[in-house]
C-alpha cells in the first residue's frame, strides 16, 4: 500500500528511436527520485508518462497498487505536476493565478493562504502585478508557489529550477526535503547539481544516446 507509484517494464519510442525500454520505476512515501540524463534522453517524456499525460508507451503503471487508468480521478487529486511551461496566465495577477489553482483542486478560495504561499516563494509585494509584467524567474516562481499551497502527496517536477536564482534554488531544495520528510514523494528532473541533498535516489536515462559536449 505504501508503494505510491510503480511502473513496470516501461518502454517508449519516438520516431523509431527507443528512448527507454524495460524501465522499472518505484516510488515510495518520503522518497525523492531524480531523473537524470543528457538533453533528449527522454526525461520529459518519462515524467509525462508517469503523470498520465502521454498514452504513447507500453508497460504498466500503478498508483497505490491499482492500475492508473482505473483510479485516475484519485491519482490526479493527489498529484502536482509542473512542466516545462509554467502554466500561469500572463494576463492575471499572481494572486488570481493561485486562486484559480486552488479552485481547480476543489478547495474554497482562501486569500490568506495564497498570499502566504506567494510570500514564502519570494514574491511578496508582487501579488497584484500581472504575471506578464514579471521577469522570467518571477513568473516561474508564481508556478512554484503552488508547492506551498495545500498538500498534494505526489510532486512531479520537470526542471523546476529553470530561471530561478541561486537563493531560490537553495530554498526550493529545502522545500523538497521538507516535503519528503512529511511523507510526500517527488519525481524531479534538473540539470542543476542536487549534490548536497541526502537520501535522494537517482535514475539515469539514455546512457547510450549520450550527446557530445556542446562545444
Amino acid at each position: 500500500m505504501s508503494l505510491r507509484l510503480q511502473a513496470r517494464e516501461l518502454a517508449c519510442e519516438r520516431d523509431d528511436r527507443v528512448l527507454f525500454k524495460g524501465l522499472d520505476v518505484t516510488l515510495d512515501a518520503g522518497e525523492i527520485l531524480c531523473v537524470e540524463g543528457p538533453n533528449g534522453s527522454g526525461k520529459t517524456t518519462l515524467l509525462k508518462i508517469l503523470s498520465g499525460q502521454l498514452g504513447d508507451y507500453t508497460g504498466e503503471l500503478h498508483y497505490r497498487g491499482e492500475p492508473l487508468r482505473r483510479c485516475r480521478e484519485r491519482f490526479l487529486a493527489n498529484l502536482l505536476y509542473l512542466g516545462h511551461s509554467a502554466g500561469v496566465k500572463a494576463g492575471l495577477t499572481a494572486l488570481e493565478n493561485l486562486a484559480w489553482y486552488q479552485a481547480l483542486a476543489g478547495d474554497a478560495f482562501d486569500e490568506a493562504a495564497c498570499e502566504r504561499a506567494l510570500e514564502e516563494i519570494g514574491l511578496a509585494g508582487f501579488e497584484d502585478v500581472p504575471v506578464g509584467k514579471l521577469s522570467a524567474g518571477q513568473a516561474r516562481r508564481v508556478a512554484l508557489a503552488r508547492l506551498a499551497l495545500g498538500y498534494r502527496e505526489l510532486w512531479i517536477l520537470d526542471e523546476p529550477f529553470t530561471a530561478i536564482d541561486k537563493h531560490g534554488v537553495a530554498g526550493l531544495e529545502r522545500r523538497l526535503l521538507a516535503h519528503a520528510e512529511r511523507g510526500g514523494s517527488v519525481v524531479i528532473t534538473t540539470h542543476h547539481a542536487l549534490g548536497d541533498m541526502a537520501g535522494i535516489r537517482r535514475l539515469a536515462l539514455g546512457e547510450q544516446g549520450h550527446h557530445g559536449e556542446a562545444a
Partner: protein
Amino acid sequence: MSTSDAPAPPPAGLWGAFTATLKRDVTLALRRRGDVLNPLVFYALVITLFPIGISPDPERLALIAPGLLWVAALLAALLSLDTLFRGDFEDGTLEQLLLAPQPLTALVMAKVSVHWLLTGLPLSLMAPLLGAMLALPPGSYMVLALSLALGSASLSLIGAIGAALTVGLARGGALLSLLILPLYIPVLIFGTGAVQAAAMGGAGAYLAILGALLALALMLAPLAIAVSLRISING
C-alpha cells in the same frame, strides 16, 4: 503526517472549480478591454461592407438582410473561436486543466459559456440595430435576436470541438473553419428561416428547432470537446 487516503473532492468543489474557471476567463477578457468589443466591431464592419460591395438600394438589401445578418454573425463567432483554447495551450494552463481532479467536461463547459456570453449574446443583442440599417422589416427584430441567441450557443458548442481539435496545430485558424463551417449549416438554415418567417408571423417552429439543435449540442458537445482536448495535448 501523510494524508493516507485523500477522498474524492466533494461536489461543492466541482461547482467551485466551474465558477472559478468562468470568472477567470471573464476577467481575462475584460482586462483587455478591446477584446469584448472586437466581435461586435467585426460584425458591424462586415455588415457595412456589404452595402458598399453590393448595392445601397434598401429594397434589395431587405431581401438579403436575414441571410447577411446571420452569415456575418456566424463569421464573427467563428473568428473568435480560434483563441478559445489556444492561449491556455501556449502558457501551459491547458495542461494543468487536464490534470485537475475535476471532470473535464464541466471545466470545458465553463470556458464555452464564457465564449457565448462574450460573443454570441452581445452579437444577438446588437443584431436588431444592424438589421434596421439593412432595412429589415421591424416586426422581425425580436425573432432575429432570439434566433441568434439560441443559434450562437450551438455555434459556440460545435465550434469548441473544432477549436479543441486544432489547438495543438500551428496554424489552426483556417483548418478550424474547414472543420466546423459545414457543421454550422443546419443552424444557419433554421436561423435565417426564422427571420424570414418572422415577417409572416410564423417563426415559432424554427425557433423550436433551433432549441432542439441546442439541446442536442449541449448533450454531445462537452464530451467531444473533452476528448478532443486530450487528443490535442497528447500529440
